[in-house]
Each structure stands twice: as C-alpha cells, then as structure tokens.
C-alpha cells in the first residue's frame, strides 16, 4: 500500500518494496533463533537474518503447529543487528503479517515452513507497507504470488532437510519456464498464461524481459558453500540458508564460507579454499525418505 510520509516522501511503493530485495542480491539470508545467533550471522557477513523460534529442521523433528514467532524474540533480534530482519507469517495469516509489520520487521516471509492458516487464499500483500517474500516451486506459482503483491520470490526447495536436490529442481524449473516464454510468439503467450495459471500481463512481461519482475533467491536444503555457489550458477540472485548454518558443527565459520562462496560462485578455487575444515555439516534427511505429507514445498497454491 502506497502512502505519503510528510517528512520524507512516498512509502510502501512497489519500487521501494522491490528495491530492498535488489540490495540483498548476491547475499546470504540466514535463519536465526536467538539474538546471539543473529549477531554471529551479521558478523559472518549475512545480508539479512530471518528471525524465527525454530529452524525448519526442528519444526520437522518436533512436529505440531508452527506459527509466527514471539514478538519479544523478534524485538530482541531487531535490536541485536543493523542488517535487515525478516520474519515468517503463516500462509494466509494476514493478522500475523499485520503484527510483524507493527513490530517493524523489514520483510515478511509468507512461508510454507509454518503451518498454513488458509488453504485457499494467500495474504493480499498489496495492503501492506512492508514488503513480502514468498516461496514458489514453479513460474506459475511465482507469478501468482507477485500478482498478490510479493516483492521478492524464493524458490522453495525442501526446508530443514540439508538436501539441496529440491532447491535445484525448483530453481531449474523456474528458469526453464522463463526461457520457454522467451521463445514464444504473442498468441502462444495467452495459452501459456492459462497453463501457468498466472495473469497474462505478468506472463507477457516475463517473456519480454526474460526474468521475473522481482528478485529471485533460492532456499531449502542449502548446507555447504558449494550448494550456495551452485544455486548462484543456476541463476539465483542470492540464497537463504535455514537450518544449514546453526545445525552444523561450526556455525560462524560455515556462515562466512557460504557468504564468500556466494560472491565467488563461479570461482572453484575460492569455493575449494573456503570449504576446507568447516567441521560437520548438518546431518540432513534425504527428501526421498520424506513421506509426501511431510513435504513443506507442497504447501501453497
């Protein structure tokens, strides 16, 4: 929602909302569950932190309904760091989003990692001044979220597994669908819009520009510097690392290594250098061993 601050100017515009994501590009956004972890992440070179009560691996292990974090925790993390702080609301839970906006978070992640609050509707994100990032497994889903006002997209992957295969699948799917649109004639785009279940105007825009109208990060299963660099080589603008850092043996060192590998994603020598002696990676779960009802990426519609 766009409005005017008499002391400065127009706030909440698409340009301002999408603009913050532009500034995060080439960076690593890290999940943190305490102020102390947030400081470690900032010190390691995180471009932003995601404040939450449990990392996806624990949500997965402990089960139960996963909700927005306690406002006290979010306040503590906001005071602990100078970089942007993101927080998660449940899919469709517009009141959690209102609360997060009131707390002054810099970005809201309407996230499939939490238990959905609405199995039909996502949040009408145009109603907010704060920008939103949403997950997507394919281009149609990404464009539906952008149509609802998302200012940034992250491919979903399979959170909390440490298995990068789903992240690979989703970023490849999105980029290959974009490439397919680029090759289509105008009349074919109408059918493509129908098949993608996305608005024609957005489909035509992607076909013309060859990219999403918002920044595209990747998420879900990134656990090593090489994982992050692979996502960048596959066309991501940046990466989210969830459980991969603070579920590993030496979080500070691994976090700094992933940051460096994200910048030097096309330089195997540097990736090799930063990958040395990182200690134990998160143990992880193979996505193939997860029964379908426990796959978070299938949440969202």
């Amino acid at each position: 929602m766009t409005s005017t601050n008499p002391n400065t100017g127009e706030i909440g515009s698409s340009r301002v909302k999408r603009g913050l994501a532009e500034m995060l590009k080439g960076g690593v956004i890290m999940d943190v569950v305490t102020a102390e972890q947030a400081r470690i992440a900032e010190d390691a070179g995180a471009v932003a932190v995601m404040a939450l009560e449990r990392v996806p691996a624990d949500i997965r292990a402990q089960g139960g309904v996963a909700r927005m974090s306690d406002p006290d925790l979010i306040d503590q993390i906001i005071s602990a760091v100078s970089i942007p702080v993101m927080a998660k609301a449940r899919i469709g839970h517009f009141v959690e989003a209102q609360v997060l906006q009131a707390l002054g978070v810099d970005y809201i992640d309407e996230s499939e990692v939490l238990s959905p609050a609405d199995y039909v509707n996502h949040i009408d994100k145009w109603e907010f001044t704060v920008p939103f990032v949403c997950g997507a497994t394919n281009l149609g889903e990404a464009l539906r979220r952008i149509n609802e006002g998302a200012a940034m997209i992250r491919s979903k992957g399979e959170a909390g597994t440490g298995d990068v295969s789903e992240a690979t699948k989703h970023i490849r799917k999105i980029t290959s669908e974009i490439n397919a649109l680029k090759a289509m004639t105008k009349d074919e785009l109408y059918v493509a819009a129908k098949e993608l279940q996305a608005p024609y105007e957005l489909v035509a825009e992607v076909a013309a520009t060859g990219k999403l109208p918002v920044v595209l990060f990747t998420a879900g299963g990134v656990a090593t510097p090489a994982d992050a660099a692979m996502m960048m080589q596959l066309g991501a603008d940046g990466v989210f690392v969830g459980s991969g850092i603070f579920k590993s043996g030496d979080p500070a060192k691994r976090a700094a290594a992933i940051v460096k590998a994200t910048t030097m994603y096309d330089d195997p020598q540097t990736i090799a250098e930063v990958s040395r002696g990182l200690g134990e990676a998160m143990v992880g779960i193979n996505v193939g061993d997860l029964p379908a009802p426990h796959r978070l990426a299938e949440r969202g519609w």
Partner: protein
Amino acid sequence: MAASTPKVGVLALQGDFREHLAVLGELGAEAVPVRRPAELAEVQGLVIPGGESTVMDKLSRAFGLREPVQRAISAGLPVYGTCAGLIMLADRVLDAIDGQLTLGGLDVTVRRNAFGSQVDSFETDLPMPVLGDEPVHAVFIRAPIVEEVGAAATPIGTLADGRVVAVEQGNLLGTSFHPEVTGDYRFHDYFLQKVRAA
C-alpha cells in the same frame, strides 16, 4: 588516461551491481564487475553499488580489495558510491557494527540506516542543481544520511528539511539514494564526466 569509451568498474561483491553495469554500459562506458585486485587495476573509475555495507566491508577485506581500492582513491581514481557505497566512501560512520571499516575518502560523517526500518523507506523528487533544473527522482532504501560534511566535501543535494543526501569531493561522489534503479542516468553521466576528465 582519458578515453571516450572509459573502462569503469562496479564493485561486485554484493548488492545491485548489475543495475550499475547496465546504466554505465548504456551511457557508452565499458562497464566491468570488480571482485579482484587484478580487475580493479584495469579500470579508470569505480562505482560502489547499493547493498549491505557490513557485507561489502568483510568481503573487500577477505578478497584483498580493501588496500588496493584505498590506494586508488588516494591516487585520484574517480569513485561513485550509492547508499552502501556512500557508507564505504565515508571517512566516519555512525551506527556501524563492531569492527566495521570503511574505505574512506569522503570527508563526511554518515549515519547508517538513518530513516528507520524498511517501512520508512521512500521515494521523492529532489532538486539537484549540479544536474540541471529538473529534479532527481530519488529512491531511499534503508538509506544513510550525511550528518556532518567536513571542510573538504561539498553537499550537492538535500531533502526538504535540509538533511544532506548527496556529496561531492574532487573525484568522489556519493548519494544516499539509488539513481541506478529509476532510469534517470544523469548522476552516472555526471560521474563519467569525472572519469573522462581524470
């Protein structure tokens, strides 16, 4: 050495460097990303993009760019910083994290993230006499402001309330806002004039 097609680098450690590369390219420069000292050595001007200053600081040290860039600035290399880039060019920073360093060069004190959280980010029109009569449409994203302008630097743009958001000092140029995202190329053109004259 001035050339009509100058080779201009954009610090590509993190942030919106692709936008700067595109603008510089459209204005007729040979625009190249800079992540290594060898790449820096070949450019006649440098842009430090928007992004996170804490991250750029860490990565510029990790990849051995900090001292070469500082030497280049001292030697007169034209450098333009937007937002985080302005912070990197400032001699003094307020609200920095522990241990955060800047490259320095601009005799100013900059406050990071001076307007509040992202919900306070904004866009507005600013008069900018050095660029002509037409105002600049400026986008401020968790932007810094220049709290104090030292004797060597000159303010060239302010908000309506007088806060300084654009400064110049010889071959150095810094703005709190992001001309690279609005399609108004006049700031980059102004910077390229410095590069061509250097």
